[in-house]
């Protein structure tokens, strides 16, 4: 295969028109020839910048070197030293602002497609039944991990490799956290990828107990006092949805993105045979501009609706990844930018019949550095729609913090934890991921899970 060193080997995708009507994965990934060709573009830098851009510090040049040589299993073992979820990260990490953002190739031409190579390596390992390496013997110490999302799985995986006996407690009926309930099938296949990665973590010896809501089914103090856990890691995420507080928001047909996505992803409303009801909608307005808004819009579109994204700032300011915005547009999602809802219009039976929107312009930069949107007086107009999905971000659930004496939270209700070690204000209790930072990304949560695993090991091995 011929390679232009300045241009990445293109990755195959499902045609936008076709994929807009199905839930199959959008990106088809590299095959072995394409991966090996792309791998030749890596300069194998001594002082690799990409590694510094990776929140879990995967030895990127080393694994790419093995791909170049066709040693895919070796490449997998190198990645799995640092990451418990490579098939997930290869798909949903914002590589453009992390590893690939720092790639030297990127100064002149395209950066190396590190994410697509990671995905290829992980998918190949799964197809060939390659598993991560298990600890040789247990050290006799027990750690409880709360939440089976990216932070929890990573923390559990790392501790298990060090010989700890780890149990993950998951509130929902399936493991994976946001990977299961939040990110849609067409970006992250549930059975093929998420369930397989969870199985890999279990193959390290990690136990997962589902249907346990910590704070309700049991409490952290009981886990330590009665069930013999030596330390606890809280990776419970940021699960509480925000609403706008505008009139009409309680109407039928107004959903949080969490509800809409959970019904579809976790509860598989889109699939034949499942009992989960979902409101398909004919014309759907999604409010918000983040990755979750893109996921909700693209899901609604696939369920057959004309779908609009209404976002109060402009294209430049969209917080979603560029790739997600690009995919959404290709599939036919309509972007109504610099616009903001002021009221949801409700019919006599309590159902949504439309939405009133005001146009915005960008003013002075606010404290986040982004230019703040300002309403244009007199620019209000109405559009008809039957479904509104609010995707305005989430905040941490107080279930754990309110039932754990001695655990400090900040004014945003996030758990206060040391960034380096994950240590909280409570002895032997650690935390990381969205529960600490508020809604962020999968890989940052994994980074935090990793840091906490190290912190827990330092504490417990000193005992």
């Amino acid at each position, binding site marked *: 295969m011929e390679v232009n060193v300045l241009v990445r080997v293109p990755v195959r995708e499902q045609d936008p028109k076709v994929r807009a009507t199905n839930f199959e994965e959008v990106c088809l990934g590299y095959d072995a020839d394409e991966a090996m060709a792309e791998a030749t573009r890596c300069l194998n830098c001594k002082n690799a910048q990409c590694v510094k851009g990776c929140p879990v510090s995967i030895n990127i040049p080393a694994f790419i070197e093995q791909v170049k040589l066709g040693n895919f299993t070796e490449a997998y073992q190198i990645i799995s030293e640092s990451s418990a979820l490579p098939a997930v990260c290869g798909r949903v990490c914002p590589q453009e602002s992390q590893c690939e953002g720092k790639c030297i190739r990127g100064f002149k031409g395209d950066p190396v497609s590190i994410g697509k190579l990671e995905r290829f390596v992980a998918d190949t390992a799964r197809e060939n039944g390659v598993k991560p390496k298990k600890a040789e013997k247990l050290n006799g110490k027990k750690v409880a991990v709360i939440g089976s999302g990216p932070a929890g799985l990573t923390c559990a995986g790392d501790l298990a490799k060090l010989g700890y006996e780890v149990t993950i407690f998951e509130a929902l009926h399936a493991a994976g956290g946001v990977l299961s309930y939040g990110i849609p099938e067409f970006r992250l296949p549930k059975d093929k990828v998420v369930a397989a990665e969870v199985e890999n973590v279990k193959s390290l010896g990690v136990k997962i107990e589902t249907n346990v*809501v910590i704070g309700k*089914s049991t409490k952290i103090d009981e886990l330590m006092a009665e069930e013999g856990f030596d330390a606890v890691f809280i990776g419970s995420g940021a699960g509480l949805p925000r609403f706008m507080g505008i009139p009409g928001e309680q109407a*039928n047909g107004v959903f*949080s993105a969490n*509800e809409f996505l959970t019904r579809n992803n976790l509860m598989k409303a889109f699939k034949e045979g499942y*009992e989960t*009801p*979902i409101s398909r909608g004919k014309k759907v307005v999604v409010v918000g501009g983040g990755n979750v808004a893109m996921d909700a819009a693209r899901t609604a579109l696939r369920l057959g609706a004309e779908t609009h994204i209404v976002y109060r700032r402009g294209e430049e300011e969209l917080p979603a990844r560029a790739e997600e915005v690009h995919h959404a547009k290709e599939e036919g999602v309509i972007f109504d930018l610099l616009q903001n809802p002021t009221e949801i219009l409700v019919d006599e039976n309590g159902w949504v019949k439309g939405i009133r929107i005001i146009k915005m312009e960008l003013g002075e930069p606010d404290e986040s550095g982004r230019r703040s949107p300002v309403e244009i007086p007199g620019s209000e107009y109405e559009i008809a729609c039957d479904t509104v999905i609010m995707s305005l971000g989430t905040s941490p*659930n107080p*279930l754990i913090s309110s039932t754990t004496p001695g655990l400090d939270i900040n004014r945003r209700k996030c758990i206060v934890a040391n960034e380096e070690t994950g240590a909280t204000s409570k002895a032997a209790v650690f935390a990381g991921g969205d529960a600490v930072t508020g809604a962020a990304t999968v890989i940052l949560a994994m980074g935090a899970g990793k840091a906490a695993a190290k912190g827990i090991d330092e504490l417990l091995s000193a005992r």
Partner: protein
Amino acid sequence: MYQIVRKEMLQSNIVLMEVEAPRVAQHCLPGQFIIAKTDEYGERIPLTICDYNREKGTVTIVVQTIGAGTERMMSLNQGEALEDFVGPLGCPSELCLEENLEETKKKKIVFIGGGLGTAPVYPQVKWLHEHGIEADVIIGYRNKDLIFYEEEMKSVAKNLYVTTDDGSYGFHGNGCMQLQALYDEGVRYDQCVTIGPMIMMKFVSELTKKLEIPTIVSMNPIMVDGTGMCGACRLLVDGQVKFACVDGPEFDGHKVDFAQAMARMAQYKTEEGRAKLAYEEGETHHGGCGHCGGDK
């Protein structure tokens, strides 16, 4: 998996299940609920806890068929298991908290249960009874044949009043009418708790407002996760948005916006109806529901 150790048909469409769920049994209190799911394909169904046994590690729920999900759950037999059973969720009833015991002891309490709502009234009355507080209970049914839980309730209530809409048993009328009758006889209560269909709780709340009896209602709106994540169960209480799953399920009945809560209950009605018909009629269902378009 959560084994069903006892199954009892209370009515042709109401079943009692005692389920092995040690973590829930260990921590639950009256007023809380669980979410159960039959199998991979099932819905997550919120159900109020009707009894529990900490020693045996079991929790009792009572299910009424309203859709395909509940119908399939009901078809499980003793010895079989539910795939998922999570809880206890929501806040316990404030009347059934040790820390409020002294306050509660001062009150004369009446419970009003209607239909399926009779079942979750039971653990509250039982808890109070075990803590030396005797409460009156009114339970209402459409007719004599639909009565269940009468004996259980009699064993824990101070005075039990059974009502039927058609007068075929007990007091002729509904719970509201019985309460009014007691009031007219001079019986006074300091606290009312009502659990049942939303329309019933609405009417009871309207009456008790007039009679100036503080009233607790137990809301059972549509839910998904039951931990505050989806917001489907949001309702307006005193003009504020509350999530029934984490802020409730019990609220001040005089402050709940029932009109809106009832409108929200209808959200998936056609969807659920469709699923139920498809389940009952299987391949033979060709659009008789008028919604699915299967006959077009």
